Every structure is written in structure tokens, then in C-alpha cells.
């Protein structure tokens, strides 16, 4: 015993203490209010100010919202109903415009009797997504995921079923070339062949074969032109395709930017910086004007597809930077341990590095996706009728001239639902991974 104690007192506990309840003021609502709302004078003043602010906003918006008129055929009729029932000074939203035009806001000019097709495509999308988002599901579902882009394309655009089939075949061909050439000719040559052969196939064979097959066995759905796609359907098509396609491209670009191979490195850096340095709207105008020049004469290249390509390239540059951050955050030891075990570059990336780097990057990736999804509204400037485009068109009609807020609230809610779900999923994933890997 050290000499700081004057004497040593013997003590042995004879009975153990049972756990006791905490005192009342330390529990429940009282404690919560004390700690969170009025813990200091400044805090109390801020609480009162916030309550006043919330009350101010709600008291102005709520009557407008609750008095909303759903049943009218024009803005002037709305006003008449309001004057008759609530008086001319009352605030009342005219939601009748949504009741009247929701089909256009959601589906654009898509033929009404075919609405089941985009809806089914959306369902297919979620089924395809499920095994990716929730790893507990059977792996066999991934086959459907692989096929789903073509299924969705066929459902939305219709036409002969052979088109999507022969396009999909190109990917299979590319994969086969890679599979059989890689062991013989080495990965770089095989990769180049696996890219070039399908492109040649699509260019020269696929179109012809699809026409022939369509002539022999005509199966298909009524064709819907791209200019008839619109409303929130268009936002979803552009946004989701952009999200799905930009992910692999962004990862490849991030790896390219990290690569020691001079050419690959410089091409990736150049691509990322160029794409990021120019506003999306400029790229969309480019898509509208220029992309057509690069295509074989005679083919008309769908404007929606052009926009999807541009949006994909744009967001892949952002994804690349987010993923690069994740790659850089991994300790060097992870790369070394993978190398020391004899894993080659692609295997160590796929099995060791990317799973961890992507996990770190989830918040940034989802953030980019949410941004991309909302940026799809920019397509209104190149004449596509997304929900914003339709809101302009609806306002231009004599019936609904002068209506603003109701449409924007509706569109805002639609976007909010999607973006908020993405945000929640990202939180769920972060928590789940944090729980598993710690």
C-alpha cells in the first residue's frame, strides 16, 4: 500500500446492491424537455423562436392546403367554388389541376390504355434491384437483374421483341469473347476484343438480324415513340438509367485515375475533369445537337437515349471522384495483403479493395445519385416534357392559366419520395455494414 493512505481500512462487501430505478426527474418527458429544449437561457430563447416560426409557417400553409379544392375543371371554376363556399379572401389550393392532369404529369403522352407497361417496368425494376440491395435474397434472382434492362426497354418502348434480344446478345458475345480469349491472349487483348467484337456486331449484324427475325416471327408490343414519353416517367427513365449505368463506369474511371498505366491514367483524368468542369445543361445541349453526327448516316438516334448517355457520363465523373476518395481512404496494408496472397489486380480490386472502398463511399454515392435524379429536370431546356415541362404546358392552357404552387407541390412531393427513400436506404446500408464489419 502506498504511503498516501494514513491507514488501511479493511472492507469486504457482504450483500450486493440490487439495481435501482433512476430518480423521476431523470426520466421521461420532463427530462427530455429539460435536456433538449430549455437546458440554458439561449437554448430556451431559440426554442421559443423555433416554435413561433413553425407556427407561422403552418398557420399560413395549412388552411390553403386543407381548403384545397379537388373537383373543378379550370382555375376560374376553382375560384368560383372558393368564393361560394369560403369567401373571396380565403386561402384555398386548387388541387383540381392535379386531379385533371395527373396522367400527363406522371406518364406524359404515353397511350392511356398502355399505362400498365411503364408500371410493370417499374415493378420489374424493383424486382431486379432487390437482390442487389438486400444480399439475403437468393443469388439466382441476379439473372433476372441482368436481363431486366432489356425487359424494361421492351416494356416501355415496345416494338418488336427481337430488337432487345439481339442487342442483349451483343453483351453475351462480348462476354464469350472475353471468357475464351483471356486465357489465351492475355487480359488486355481480350478486353479490347471483347469491346470491339460486340460493337461490330451491333453495327452490322444486330439490326439486320432483328428485322429478319421480326419478319419470320412477329412478336411485339405497340410501339411508343420517345416523344410521347414524358412526365415523371421520363424523369425516372433518365434518372434510373443514369444511376445504374454511371455506377460501373464511375468505378472504372476511379480505378483508371488510380492506375500506374500512363495512358489509362491520363485518359481517365482528362475525361473526369472535362465532364465535371462543364455544366450539365451544356452537355445536354451537346447531346441534342452533336451526338447525331457521330452515328452512321440514316440512323436516327433517339433523343431520350442521347440524354441518358450524357447524364450517365456526367454523373460517372462524380461517382469516380467519390469512389476515388474511398480508395484513397483504405490503408495501404489492404493492398499489400491482397498482393502478398497472390491475388491479381482485378481479383484484389473486386474482392478486397472495392467492397471496402464502396462501403466508405456510400454517403457520397447516394448523394450524387440524388443530385443526378433531380438534375434530370434540366431536360426541360432541350424540349423534353418532364414534369416541369408539363407544368409549363399545363399553365399555357387556358383552363389552368395562372396556377403555380399546386403543380410544384405535387412535383416536389414526387421527387421527395424518391430522393428520401434513397437517403433512407443509404442510412440502412451504412448501419448494416457498420454492424457486420466491426
Amino acid at each position, binding site marked *: 500500500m502506498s504511503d498516501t493512505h494514513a491507514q488501511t481500512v479493511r472492507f469486504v462487501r457482504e450483500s450486493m446492491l440490487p439495481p435501482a430505478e433512476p430518480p423521476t426527474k431523470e426520466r421521461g418527458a420532463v427530462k427530455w424537455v429539460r435536456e433538449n429544449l430549455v437546458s440554458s437561457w439561449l437554448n430556451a430563447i431559440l426554442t421559443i423562436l423555433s416554435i413561433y416560426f413553425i407556427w407561422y409557417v403552418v398557420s399560413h400553409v395549412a388552411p390553403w392546403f386543407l381548403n384545397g379544392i379537388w373537383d373543378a375543371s379550370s382555375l376560374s371554376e376553382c375560384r368560383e367554388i372558393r368564393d361560394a363556399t369560403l369567401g373571396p379572401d380565403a386561402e384555398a389550393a386548387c388541387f383540381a389541376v392535379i386531379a385533371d392532369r395527373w396522367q400527363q404529369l406522371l406518364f406524359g403522352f404515353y397511350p392511356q390504355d398502355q399505362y400498365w407497361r411503364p408500371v410493370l417496368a417499374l415493378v420489374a425494376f424493383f424486382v431486379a434491384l432487390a437482390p442487389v440491395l438486400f444480399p439475403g435474397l437468393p443469388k439466382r434472382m441476379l439473372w433476372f437483374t441482368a436481363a431486366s434492362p432489356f425487359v424494361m426497354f421492351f416494356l416501355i418502348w415496345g416494338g418488336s421483341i427481337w430488337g432487345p434480344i439481339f442487342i442483349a446478345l451483343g453483351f453475351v458475345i462480348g462476354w464469350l469473347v472475353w471468357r475464351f480469349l483471356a486465357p489465351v491472349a492475355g487480359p488486355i487483348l481480350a478486353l479490347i476484343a471483347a469491346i470491339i467484337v460486340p460493337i461490330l456486331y451491333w453495327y452490322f449484324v444486330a439490326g439486320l438480324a432483328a428485322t429478319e427475325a421480326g419478319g419470320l416471327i412477329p412478336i411485339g408490343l405497340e410501339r411508343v415513340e420517345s416523344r410521347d414519353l414524358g412526365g415523371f416517367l421520363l424523369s425516372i427513365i433518365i434518372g434510373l438509367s443514369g444511376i445504374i449505368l454511371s455506377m460501373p463506369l464511375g468505378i472504372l474511371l476511379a480505378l483508371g485515375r488510380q492506375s500506374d498505366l500512363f495512358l489509362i491514367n491520363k485518359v481517365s483524368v482528362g475525361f473526369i475533369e472535362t465532364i465535371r468542369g462543364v455544366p450539365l445543361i451544356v452537355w445536354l445541349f451537346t447531346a441534342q445537337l452533336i451526338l447525331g453526327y457521330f452515328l452512321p448516316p440514316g440512323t436516327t438516334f433517339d433523343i431520350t437515349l442521347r440524354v441518358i448517355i450524357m447524364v450517365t457520363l456526367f454523373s460517372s465523373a462524380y461517382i469516380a471522384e467519390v469512389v476515388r476518395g474511398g480508395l484513397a481512404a483504405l*490503408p495501404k*496494408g*489492404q493492398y*499489400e*495483403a*491482397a*498482393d*502478398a*496472397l*497472390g*491475388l*491479381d489486380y482485378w*481479383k484484389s480490386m473486386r*474482392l*478486397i479493395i472495392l*467492397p*471496402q472502398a464502396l*462501403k466508405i463511399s456510400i454517403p457520397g454515392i447516394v448523394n450524387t445519385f440524388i443530385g443526378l435524379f433531380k438534375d434530370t429536370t434540366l431536360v426541360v431546356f432541350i424540349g423534353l416534357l418532364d414534369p416541369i415541362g408539363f407544368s409549363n404546358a399545363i399553365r399555357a392552357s387556358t383552363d389552368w392559366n395562372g396556377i403555380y404552387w399546386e403543380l410544384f407541390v405535387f412535383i416536389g412531393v414526387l421527387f421527395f419520395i424518391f430522393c428520401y427513400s434513397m437517403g433512407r436506404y443509404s442510412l440502412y446500408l451504412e448501419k448494416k*455494414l457498420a454492424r*457486420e*464489419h*466491426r
Partner: protein
Amino acid sequence: MTDTSIEAREIDRSQMRVSDELAIEITDMNKWYGTFHVLRDINLSVYRGERIVICGPSGSGKSTLIRCINRLEEHQSGRIIVDGTELSSDLKNIDKIRSEVGMCFQHFNLFPHLTILENCTLAPIWVRKVPKREAEETAMHFLTKVKIPDQANKYPGQLSGGQQQRVAIARSLCMRPRIMLFDEPTSALDPEMIKEVLDTMIELAEEGMTMICVTHEMGFAQAVANRVIFMDQGQIIEQNEPREFFNNPQSDRTKLFLSQILGH
């Protein structure tokens, strides 16, 4: 120094045989980091079954030397031949050598997103193309050997440092390497965990594994090494069998170094 435990242990030397077959041959090897000459004229032959301990002051190039053996670092001149294969920029040779040479790091470098079992089966499945079942059996065999079979389904973050290092050893062994490299495997560990890791390494030595260990555990060196190499400023200053090395060091630098680490 924490070596008392080792002296208490009876080392079984029956399997510790050094054959006259070369495992590693390094001739006139030089390496630079930029303009900094880290390794100078390294000549080193390691025979199959040898247990070599490399020591030396911090920054003397010990890590760099053993990292050159599995090409985590590239050398600029001279030759390194491992298991009859020369290390050059040929990727096929590098992958071949890496799968023959196991390595354990100071900070374990387990893969935190995989379970212990997955850590151990990953390389056999993807590099050696061993069927999953078989790889798992092998993994359990080696996990039992390092005395942590019951942790197989945990994640690395849930294990103590000593346990993690033993998993790292098991993970290397699952590739059935012919040579093991250790880079200060115990220097990130608390004293009571050092013993469990050293015990595992001693067992490996007893089974006749060719080992090169960078370590300052002089007790371990005395107990199992058949050669101790002292490095300073990127050069091999002195090498000898352990008893001579510790009792009768020749060079002044070695004497100084030994007096520093054994002195207090």
C-alpha cells in the same frame, strides 16, 4: 525484452533440418527510393528449412529487404531468385512467387469486411482454385493449429491483436507456402499477446518451415533461429549463428546495437 516464456519451453529440433537446396538467392541486389539508396549490395542465400532473424536499427532497410522477396517492393539491380523463379517485371512470375511465399505484417492487415474463415479461404479459392468446402476444411485445420477455431465466424475487428496476428498467420498458411516472411509480427502487440504469437511461430519452425523474420525478440532468435542477420544503413553488417552473434559480436555497430537492446 519479453523472452522468459520462450526459454521455459522445450524446443523440438527434430524436424528443424536445413537442407542444401536453395530457397532464396539474392545476389548484388540494390534498391533506391528515388535517389535514396535503401539497400546496398545485398547478397543472401537462404536454404530450405532455415530460420533467419533479421535485426537492426530503425530505418536500416529490414522491411524493405523482405518486401523485395515477394515483390511488394521492386529492386533496381541484382537478382532475386525465389524457389527457382527469378523475380522480374513478368507478372506471371510475381503471382507465382507470391502464392508460394506467405507474409505476415506488423499490423496484421486482415480484411475487415470478411469473417475470419473467409479471410482464410479467399486466396485458396480465388488463386489456387480450391473448391470452397476443401478450402474451409483447410482453413479450420490451420485455425485450430493457431488455437482459435471458435472465432471462425467473427470479423477481425472483434478479435484481440494477438488473435488477429494468429489469424494472419493461419491465412498465409492456408496457401500452403514454402517460405514464410514475418515483418515485426509482434511489435504492435501487448506483452501478454506476444507470447501466443511467438509460440505459433515456434511451432511453425519446429515443423521445418523456411522462415525469415524481422523481429527484435532476441529470445525468439536465440531459441529458434539458425542464423541472425544484422543490418544497418541498407547493408548486411554481420551474420552468424545466434549464440556466436549474441555472445561474440564482431562489428562495433553490432556491439552497440546489442548493448542498446539488451542493455536495459
